[in-house]
């Protein structure tokens, strides 16, 4: 079997992630999920609160601000989030990656 290149694989996987976050997430179940449901039933849901830092979250509750249509707001939030996470993950991996020229100990500050 011919093997696809890493570049093609990454682009394909990223396209799938962007597609899911942008086009499918607006149609995800809005039911409370595992912990939330248990917290509701066992009556400790009210204990939950946002940290004050989170009042300034750029995209609170996966709804991109300033977009009235809920589905569009969620899709845009997903699109932005996926590309952000990709960039951060790529960046960290790039910074800490193995440098073969540096030898075994890899001591660099």
């Amino acid at each position, binding site marked *: 079997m011919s*093997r*696809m290149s*890493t570049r093609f*694989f*990454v682009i394909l*996987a*990223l396209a*799938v*992630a*962007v597609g*899911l*976050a942008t086009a499918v*997430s607006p149609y*995800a*179940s809005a*039911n*409370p*999920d*595992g*912990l939330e*449901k*248990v*917290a509701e039933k*066992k009556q*400790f849901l009210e*204990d*939950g*609160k*946002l*940290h004050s*830092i*989170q009042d300034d*979250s750029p*995209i*609170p*509750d*996966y709804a991109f601000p300033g977009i009235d249509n809920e589905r569009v707001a*969620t899709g845009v*939030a*997903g699109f932005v*989030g*996926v*590309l*952000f*996470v*990709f*960039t*951060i*993950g*790529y*960046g*960290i*991996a*790039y910074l*800490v*990656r*193995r440098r*073969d020229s540096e030898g*075994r100990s*890899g001591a660099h500050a």
Partner: protein
Amino acid sequence: MFDLPIALHIPDGFLSSGVAALLWVVAIAAVAIGLRVANRDLDEARVPLLGVLAAFIFAVQMLNFPVAGGTSGHLLGATLAAVLLGPWVACLVMAVVLVTQAFGFADGGVSALGANIVNMGVLGALLAGYLVTAGEKALPKSRGAFLGVVGVVSWLAVMVGAAATSFQLAISGTVPLDTVLPAMLGVHALIGIGEAVITVAAVSAVLVARPDLVALGTRFEPAPAAPGAPAAAGSTS
């Protein structure tokens, strides 16, 4: 009214400050080991994979699927990350996703972020790293057996995360253990099935496209023999 986005993520206010602080320490330690292992093992060619895996897990965590009784669940992704990049680098991937969710999307608490990294990332990743590797040795080296193990471990990882969350809530005095543990395990037994289906599907796709990118497959051994012993000499690759 602002709808508090809880997801499987613990918000602030559920855990006592002592429990939250302890889990921050555990999470930081796991991420530090993840950075060291990446520094030792992650070659240049696989750098984009870490980014794309984090992006994929972020995306699929947005896809809540309905389970019984008006409840939903979503992928956690720790098993998927561990199978593809090894358990310690998986901790790093999960931390990237969960930190972004907490600060960018107000999903999951800030003082509870350590707990969320441990419960949804570290525990599942290390469990998967250990069990999938053990399964590789014990079972026939077939794709079917490998995927079977991955599925079972995915389910277990969700259950372990749910149990850990229950214990932390109980120790924090938020809810009695005999109340929260059965409820959490009951719901997550179903959510874990979704986790298993998605994880097996994703790993199958990678096995078809690029089997060499499956770290816990037969290609190469993941780094440490024992969890907790991060940097031993003698890497494979």
